[in-house]
């Protein structure tokens, strides 16, 4: 379980205008400004939940995850993760959590991943039998077989990410903080990692908190989302609820037959056009009118019909625009 109450994390940042003069002046007197990376954040996550943690760049997501994982001392507020105060970094705490940062590596660069795994086994004091079983499971789920004995520096980004995930999970943590775990990966690798995270969550009843720039990750994995901006909470709840609240209209896509009569008039009648590419059209339709629109489309022999929620990216774009102060 994760409990965060009134968390703030401020950084003191040295400010210097460009230029040689400013550089020399900064030798004698420096000006600092306080950046409020996290500012009064509160939420709770129950064991076994999968939560998407969203926000624009610089919203404070990574800082929050680092506080939760015990890497940063909070400026104020209470944080409890797995019944521990994270920044004390007690052994019993570190044994239960993991933090995967897509842009940081814990693999020993010059040695094959198998060596990092052996090192982690020793440091986390995982019994040999349990280690072998977990490694076998991870090797199968992530298809690590051919990678285990290849030097890390020779692995591709995707291969390395899979190996990173395995390194982070060998001690079977029950709370996973995943910060951009799919960054830079191709679509099939993203799918594999998503599937893996879901399996792990279900097998071990692990709590998962995930940030990602790929909204598909969030939609596929997280029934609940916490959205923050400039360090403060702006939404916490069910993902579908968020979408409904922000934009209750559906997206109806279809392909018109080549011999459709007066297609422009027909489309205009259905709803607001969002995209039109030849005979393929996407319109925006209020939820209660969807049935009528679909009926119409059938009458006109439209094919490849799809009814979808608005994409999460679009929802967030609107949301963050609304939250921005007037300029």
């Amino acid at each position, binding site marked *: 379980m994760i409990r965060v109450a009134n968390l703030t994390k401020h950084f003191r940042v040295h400010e210097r205008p460009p230029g040689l003069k400013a550089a020399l002046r900064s030798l004698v007197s420096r000006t600092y400004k306080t950046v409020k990376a996290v500012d009064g954040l509160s939420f709770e996550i129950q064991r076994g939940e999968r939560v998407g943690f969203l926000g624009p760049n610089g919203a404070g997501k*990574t800082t929050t995850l680092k506080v939760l994982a*015990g890497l940063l001392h909070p400026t104020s507020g209470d944080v409890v993760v797995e019944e521990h105060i994270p920044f004390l970094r007690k052994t019993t705490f570190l044994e239960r959590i993991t933090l995967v940062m897509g842009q*940081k590596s814990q693999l020993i660069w010059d*040695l094959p991943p198998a060596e990092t795994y052996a*090192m982690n*086994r020793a*440091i*986390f004091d995982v019994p040999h039998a349990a280690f072998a079983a977990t490694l076998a499971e991870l090797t199968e789920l992530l298809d690590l077989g051919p990678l285990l004995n290849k030097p890390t520096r020779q692995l591709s980004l995707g291969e390395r990410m899979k190996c990173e995930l395995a390194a982070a999970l060998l001690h079977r943590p029950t709370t996973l903080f995943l910060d951009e775990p799919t960054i830079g990966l191709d679509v099939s690798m993203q799918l594999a990692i998503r599937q893996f995270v879901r399996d792990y969550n279900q097998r071990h009843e692990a709590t998962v908190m995930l940030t990602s720039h790929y909204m598909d990750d969030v939609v596929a994995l997280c029934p609940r989302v916490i959205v923050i901006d400039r360090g403060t909470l702006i939404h916490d709840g069910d993902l579908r609820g968020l979408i409904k609240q922000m934009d209750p209209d559906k997206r109806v896509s279809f392909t018109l037959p080549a011999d459709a009569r007066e297609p422009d008039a027909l489309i205009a009648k259905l709803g607001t056009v969002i995209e039109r590419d030849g005979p393929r059209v996407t319109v925006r339709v209020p939820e209660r009118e969807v049935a009528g629109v679909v009926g119409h489309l059938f009458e006109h022999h439209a094919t490849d019909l799809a009814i979808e929620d608005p994409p999460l990216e679009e929802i967030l774009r609107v949301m963050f625009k609304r939250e921005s102060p007037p300029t």
Partner: protein
Amino acid sequence: MRRTLRAIPTMLRIGVAETVAYRAEFIVWMLTTTLPLVMLALWSSVAAETAFRGYSSADFVAYYLANLIVRNLTGSWVGWQVSEEIRTGAMAMRLLRPMHPFVVFATSHLAAVPFRSLIALPIAGALLLSSGASAISHHPAQLLLAIPSIVLAWIITFTILFAIGSIAFFITKAMSLMELYFGLFSLFSGYLLPLDLMPGPLATFAAYAPFRFMLSVPVELLTKDLATGDALTLLAKQAAWAVGSVAIALLVWRRGVRRFEAVGS
């Protein structure tokens, strides 16, 4: 503690694997510790005709070969590593593991010692026993004391460098401190010249600063004939510095890690 002891064999094994991963780096490292040989050539020529302030040519040979051996066994680069990992945020990954980074770094550095000395040690040892034999300590007990003294020198060097590296928690570029450290170390540890060749006030400073205990003391035990009491006193002082430097390193670390900003995403 028991967990640490159980982990050490694996950590040592991986430390060895890391050390031998790059052959070129391996050779470069061995070359960097050969500065005493240059000094040896210099001082041997100075003392070729007559002894220089009590040092004969053979004394210089013995001094610098012993110096090379001790430096090979005790040299450390942990300060650069720690400060760089703090600056880039890579230290974050170590902080997520339930073992103090001090122990993890110490083990991996310890694993490297025999390999980094693989070539230099036998050659220096053989030369010391041939050309410098007359200038080696004549007391076997004192030669034995050099062994714990080398261990203590390793501890002091490692921990002081660990502490300097940890200063990166407080200032962004602790590397400049490392330059300062290396300057002071070269002068006051006996790395460049025997400490008893130093002029008055500098010699006094050298006697009390920690640098002497990082290199000169084991070299003195190997090459001088000291009274037993003096030898034991040196060792006791060295042990005190070892305890003190561990305490300082852990304190700087503890204070610093609170300020860690785990930069980079």
